[in-house]
């Protein structure tokens, strides 16, 4: 029996957040290779870039997925917007393809409703990867609590799933 992993496209998604960033690496359409949250301290953008570079060197992905924070109506902070730009700049050096999706587009794709919640999207993603992700699904956020850092993993996973659903779109060489 041959168990060899054939050559497949490796897609990598990063979702920067207040604590650091969440990431997911996927091979083909079904195999999650790595997923997690990287927490950074001090100069968050510099530290994030160091960790992003390390991951990039280890996985050598074909495509990098990021949230489109430059769209009209995006409510991400200036630090996150700057980090996104810096990551895109870094990918140019390595001739890595970058694909961008806005939060609204993601929800429209995955939930069929632009007003769906992140929790609904996370639950949908957890159902799609029953071996890997359900154990990392955070409890439903209460209005008085801040977002669980594990939600970044689901945001990143949503990006790679959306990429496979609509990969003809929006891919550009970095």
């Amino acid at each position, binding site marked *: 029996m*041959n*168990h*060899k*992993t*054939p*050559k*497949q*496209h*490796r897609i990598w998604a990063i979702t920067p957040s207040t604590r650091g960033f969440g990431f997911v690496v996927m*091979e083909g359409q079904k*195999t*999650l*290779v*790595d*997923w*997690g949250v990287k927490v950074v301290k001090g100069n968050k953008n510099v530290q994030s870039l160091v960790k992003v570079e390390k991951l990039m060197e*280890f*996985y*050598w*992905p*074909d495509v990098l997925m990021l949230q489109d924070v430059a769209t009209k109506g995006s409510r991400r902070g200036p630090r996150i917007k700057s980090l996104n730009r810096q990551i895109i700049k870094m990918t140019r050096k390595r001739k890595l393809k970058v694909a961008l999706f806005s939060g609204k587009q993601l929800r429209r794709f995955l939930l069929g409703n632009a007003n769906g919640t992140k929790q609904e999207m996370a639950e949908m993603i957890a159902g799609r990867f029953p*071996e*890997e992700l359900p*154990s990392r699904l955070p409890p439903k956020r209460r209005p008085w609590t801040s977002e669980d850092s594990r939600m970044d993993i689901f945001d990143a996973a949503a990006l790679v799933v959306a990429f496979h659903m609509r990969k003809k779109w929006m891919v550009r060489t970095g």
Partner: protein
Amino acid sequence: MPSAPLPSYLRTHRKRLALSQAEVAFLLGIHGESKGAKVCRDERFVREPSLATALAYEAIYQRPVSELFAGLYQEVEQEIAERAKVLTYRKDWKPSRQTTRKRQVFAALATRQSKQSFT
């Protein structure tokens, strides 16, 4: 162009089973303070694990070694295919049943890799 497989998929399978590096180290029988670090080194493929450790990983993750170290396996397989190709073209063998069988084996080994590189 699709990517070549990673040298090691240990981290993927550990995370799939929701195990920590320290827990895997304990299962491997690694003792001492830096036991998690040794598992980390294997996962990053900074060092090649010994045969006993590779088999232990197979037992823990219930996946064959060739899948856990897919990149390394592919590299080794490619090298074997190249050597098999050399043996296929060897002409100093006397014709016999054994030689025919050998040629079949070498041809199969040589074509196996070239077939897989198109997948």
